[in-house]
């Protein structure tokens, strides 16, 4: 199968194509990378960085783990690597597939937001909110921009931290992202500043936040804290079928970063994302990662605990729904310093022939003493045709560590259904209640509106699962 990344024909989006200010040709060449850099008017070092990354991308083999079969179906020659987003947004609402519109309807997404989510409009009601938010943040010295603007306005900070956590050498998709990245968020929190409200990519309008190869960099300076939220539960309609993002988090001494993702990609999308964080002395990093939709998701948020008493936490849920869907998700925690602690909580649900895999790494370096870690992964399978796998890896090179690992695979028990039904719930309601309960450790960490949305989405997904 050739990966049809320019799916605009399929969905009738070809009308505006002639108007594109810039659109690269298929396949990835040095010329394309150079023209992306030129278009963005980037400093020389970034251009060199992109070119070096391109070389690495060419040389790197495909990962030999994960869903290699699906991975190898990706045809890199058949991808448009850059489409200027302002043009992208001229797509018409009429062209958005009906099922996506229906889902917006049933989720009760406001009209203006629907267009935004469908990628047909960047103008969105919260523009005013965003502007006032940005004024407040400015007073605090907080920088919250799209990555392109970040590079233009704060080149020194970007240069200091960019690609220090996820170098292009890391993996083929990180290299690809490094060569052609566009959009994403750039956030800097000054020392001692606590940003009370969550920063949402949602508010970052008029920018390329739905980008195919977005790049996010968050730096929380000493003693600061921030919560960043990306995505939403509504299906993110993308005509691009390869989403390959890189996210880098840097929590300096005693800083705290929480990064929440809820994504529900349309079913044509390969979602291959490299997310990594570094936690310095006394810092806390938390990844909350909710994965729904897509064809194949491979995502393992990782945390390097490099300073004493740093704490890392990953809570992830994956919903694999349908035989054409594989969620390969998990977490990586690397304990490098002593007295560091970590918790991994992974929840997966598979139904309708879907496949959910947990892939995790817990590593304790030699010399990291008095390390504590808890890993808990639970899989819930809703029928006989679905699949769940667990691939936990532990590399412990130190004696004085305390590691707990627990994994469960369960089905919805008839006795539980009977119990709930005896209290008046229908079979469907009873199943949904058990599933919601299973997801609770994740959902309870979300801001209220996201929690409500997520529960509603699960309800939608579960509809018709009886039979």
């Amino acid at each position, binding site marked *: 199968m050739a990966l049809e990344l320019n799916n605009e024909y399929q969905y009738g989006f070809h009308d505006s194509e002639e108007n594109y200010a810039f659109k690269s040709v298929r396949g990835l060449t040095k010329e394309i990378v150079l023209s992306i850099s030129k278009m963005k008017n980037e400093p020389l070092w970034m251009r060199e960085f992109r070119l070096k990354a391109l070389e690495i991308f060419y040389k790197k083999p495909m990962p030999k783990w994960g869903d290699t079969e699906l991975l190898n179906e990706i045809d890199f020659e058949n991808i448009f690597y850059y489409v200027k987003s302002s043009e992208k947004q001229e797509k018409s609402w009429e062209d958005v597939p009906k099922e996506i519109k229906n889902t917006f309807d049933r989720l009760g997404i406001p009209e203006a937001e629907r267009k935004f989510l469908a990628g047909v409009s960047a103008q969105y009601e919260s523009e005013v909110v965003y502007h006032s938010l940005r004024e407040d943040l400015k007073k605090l010295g907080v920088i919250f921009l799209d990555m392109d603007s970040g590079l233009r306005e704060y080149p020194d900070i970007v240069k200091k931290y960019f690609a220090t956590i996820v170098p292009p050498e890391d993996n083929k998709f990180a290299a690809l992202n490094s060569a052609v990245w566009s959009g994403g968020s750039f956030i800097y929190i000054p020392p001692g500043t606590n940003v009370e409200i969550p920063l949402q990519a949602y508010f970052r309008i008029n920018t390329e936040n739905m980008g195919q190869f977005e790049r996010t960099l968050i730096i929380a300076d000493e003693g600061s804290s921030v919560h960043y939220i990306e995505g939403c539960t509504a299906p993110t309609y993308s005509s691009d079928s390869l989403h390959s993002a890189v996210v880098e988090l840097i929590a300096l001494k005693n800083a705290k970063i929480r990064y929440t993702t809820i994504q529900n990609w349309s079913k044509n999308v390969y979602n291959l994302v490299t997310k990594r964080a570094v936690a310095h002395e006394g810092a806390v990093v938390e990844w909350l990662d909710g994965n729904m939709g897509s064809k194949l998701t491979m995502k393992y948020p990782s945390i390097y605990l490099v300073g004493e008493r740093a704490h890392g936490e990953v809570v992830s849920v994956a919903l694999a729904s349908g035989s054409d869907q594989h969620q390969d998700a998990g977490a990586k925690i690397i304990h490098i310093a002593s007295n560091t602690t970590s918790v991994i909580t992974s929840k997966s649900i598979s139904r309708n022939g879907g496949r959910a895999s947990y892939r995790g790494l817990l590593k304790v370096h030699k010399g990291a003493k008095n390390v504590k870690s808890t890993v808990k992964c639970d899989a819930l399978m809703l029928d006989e045709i679905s699949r769940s796998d667990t691939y936990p890896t532990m590399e412990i090179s130190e004696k004085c560590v305390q590691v707990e690992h627990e994994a469960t695979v369960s089905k919805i*028990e*008839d*006795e*539980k259904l*009977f*119990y*709930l*039904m*005896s*209290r*008046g*719930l*229908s*079979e469907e*309601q009873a199943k949904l*209640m*058990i599933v*919601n*309960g*299973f*997801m*609770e*450790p994740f959902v309870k960490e979300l801001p209220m509106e996201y929690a409500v949305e997520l529960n509603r989405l699960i309800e939608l997904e579960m509809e018709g699962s009886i039979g």
Partner: protein
Amino acid sequence: MPELLKIKNLQAEIDGKKILHGLDLQINTGEIHAVMGRNGSGKSTFSNTLMGHPAYKISSGEINFNGTVINDLKPNERAKLGLFLGFQYPLSIPGVTVASFLRQAHKALKGDTASPRDFRKLLYEKMDDLEIEHAFATRYINDGFSGGEKKRMEILQMAMLEPKLAVLDEPDSGLDIDSLKLVAQSINKYKEKNPQLGVLLITHYQRILDYLRPDKVHVFIDGNIVESGGPELAVELEKKGYDWLAEKEAAKA
């Protein structure tokens, strides 16, 4: 008193094994009936069959509840008619709080649209009645509850859902004497406030009957009622055990 439950010649099986052999029973509104019998005599099959557990098949006979034959109804449909089963082993549902569970069940059975606030008020009132701490409202259903807490939660559920007939399957099993007393008292309190409630109490100890005075006592042996009587029958069983009835039954055959 009007008939609430009328069972005629009920035969039921699980996995092709016949457990209930032609049982007859009638309970009228407001009555308390105790079904006593040894472990393995078919008491729990009886309660599961009444509530409509899918693993139990009715091979013959009829269960008429409040004028409706419920043989083929699903558990939730039976609940809607006013039937309640207090489980011998209540199940835990991690991640679902007692309050949200009860709110959904309440809504499903009564179709009400009480605001979360009004519902909470109602729940707290019932908890106060049964002397259950409010903190239980936000705990996950039966998750990490002690035996006594689980049994009292069943009574709280009954109190919230206000059934016409409560089948209580061994609400006394596994409890120490103090917990037993608490559970019995909460059943009594609710029953006093709701005299129309019919109760079918399944137990193999006489002790709980000291607190809950049954109108009728039935003895279950080998999947059928072999003897019925007043409260004095329970006292006799406590003294003499079940053997004399089993022998009597064997002699009949």
